[in-house]
């Protein structure tokens, strides 16, 4: 984790902060979702407690805390309690691998604004998120309820089906950048945009070389698949109320329910962050290269350490703003589209998105090959 005690301490703090970001984002997102849905549906939403209903979050937390502790009689106790705890882990571990801002240079130490730097970042994040079905299956089996079990099987079948489309849709992107490393991807997206094919070059200098301009189809597929991965509407078949009551967490309440919520919103945050990273330039401010920003920070800070810290914080804010935009799209979509039927969902995953992702891969490979002839 580091070479000396200072570095180890800072790294441990960073990891805990990453976790707290996810935990703290959830009440804010829940509030945004309730206000946003009210706005979309021409209602008021929570507005009684505190300014704009903001204290509703605290009230909810207190309410959850005083809920009765209880497990159904025919539950498998160990799995029943382990499932919500395990629901937190994949999202947190994946989120900690995402670079949130430019690295900060403090004397001889370099601190990256991320939990840990992993040189096969994408594979790591995919691998960790592929562990998510366990929590669902444990909850479904542990509850000892047939609705929970049905919901868990549906949810995990959905998650693994869309994992295929998710995994395949980023192959083209990996090919474009030629790396698995997330930091190198951000580096690659800083240059101005230019298309080159068969010796001709079309410079579009007013646009940054973001992945979305090279991989529009891949970006759409990735974003759609990540909706399904985080069990959000229109893909929330796991908890189709009409036929399955609440899916795999029907027997859960209080803080156990809240932990599932944190896991679900955590997946949403990771998906938005990945979207920003892969296709929208990461933490770099559009139009302002990192050199300009560093120069500006040097002029406005007392010394190099603080200048680096300032630049890091600005990029962090920029990254969070971009992520918030995508989180809002998640919320907007949830309150706009109706739910699929289960067979439609599976058809979309296997027969529509997978072939299109394949097409995207072949097209990208062909274009890259032709461009280098």
């Amino acid at each position, binding site marked *: 984790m580091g070479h000396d005690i200072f570095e180890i301490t800072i790294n441990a703090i960073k990891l805990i902060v990453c976790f707290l970001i996810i935990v703290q984002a959830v009440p804010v997102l829940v509030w945004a979702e309730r206000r946003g849905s009210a706005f979309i549906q021409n209602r008021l939403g929570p507005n009684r407690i505190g300014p704009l209903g903001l204290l509703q979050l605290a009230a909810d937390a207190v309410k959850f805390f005083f809920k009765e502790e209880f497990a159904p009689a025919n539950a498998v106790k160990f*799995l029943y309690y382990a499932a919500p705890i395990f629901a937190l882990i994949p999202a947190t571990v994946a989120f900690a691998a995402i670079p949130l801002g430019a690295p900060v240079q403090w004397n001889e130490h370099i601190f990256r604004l991320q939990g840990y730097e992993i040189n*096969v970042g994408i*594979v790591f994040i995919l691998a960790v998120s*592929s*562990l998510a079905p*366990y929590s669902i299956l444990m909850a479904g*089996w542990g509850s000892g309820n047939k609705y929970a079990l049905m919901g868990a*099987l549906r949810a995990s079948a959905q998650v693994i089906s869309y994992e295929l489309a998710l995994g395949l849709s980023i192959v083209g992107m990996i090919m474009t950048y030629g790396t*698995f490393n997330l930091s190198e991807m951000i580096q690659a997206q800083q240059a101005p945009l230019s298309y080159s094919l068969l010796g001709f070059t079309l410079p579009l200098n007013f646009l940054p070389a973001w992945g979305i301009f090279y991989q529009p189809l891949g970006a759409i597929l990735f974003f759609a698949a990540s909706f399904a991965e985080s069990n959000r509407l229109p893909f929330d078949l796991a908890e189709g109320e009409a036929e399955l009551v609440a899916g795999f967490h029907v027997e859960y309440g209080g803080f156990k329910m809240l932990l599932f919520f944190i896991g679900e919103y955590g997946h949403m945050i990771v998906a938005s962050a990945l979207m920003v990273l892969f296709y929208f330039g990461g933490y770099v401010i559009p139009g302002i290269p990192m050199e300009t920003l560093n120069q500006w920070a040097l002029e406005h800070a007392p010394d190099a350490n603080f200048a680096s810290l300032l630049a890091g914080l600005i990029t962090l804010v920029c990254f969070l703003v971009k992520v918030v935009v995508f989180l809002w799209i998640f919320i907007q979509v949830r309150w706009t589209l109706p739910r699929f039927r289960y067979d439609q969902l599976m058809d979309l995953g296997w027969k529509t998105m997978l072939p299109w992702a394949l097409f995207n891969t072949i097209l990208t490979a062909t274009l890259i090959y032709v461009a280098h002839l």
Partner: protein
Amino acid sequence: MTADVFLFWFLAIVTLAGGLTTIMITNPIYSALSLAFTMVGVSALFVTLNAYFLAGVQLIVYAGAVTVLFVMVLMMFDLKHEVTAFTRGKISGMVKSGIVAVLAGILVGSISLTTDIFSKSGAAPEAVIGGDTTKELGKVLFSKYIFGFEALGILLLMVAIGAVALARSKGGTHAKQ
């Protein structure tokens, strides 16, 4: 004791505990979950050996796919009450355990006898692959082992067809009552 050594012993103990739980515990669901735990441990051991990409693949394929399949099948079968998890028959059980113990002894003994050969003939610590092995892996896979790669593609196709055929044999898509 450096951090790397500590990490190895930690992971070794964790992985072994997972592996032993898999074969000792009588409830198959717990067996499958501890198998997943073992897979995660092995993947972490791959990371200590600098095989980053393989560690990720191990997680995706084994922990994220194969063991999920096990868990799903077990949940479908609903095998909660399994009275006889282990083989009956004391003598045959003893014979089998004895065979296993002998094999363990032979393996460990042969490893401790032959490691000197490897450390002398083979690589000095400098030759150990360090850093990013992912691109290297891709280069070797797509030049030297390209035929095996295509053959595996065919194999997977065959297995997909065979598994579908098997799953639908007799009795349609629903379990018989």
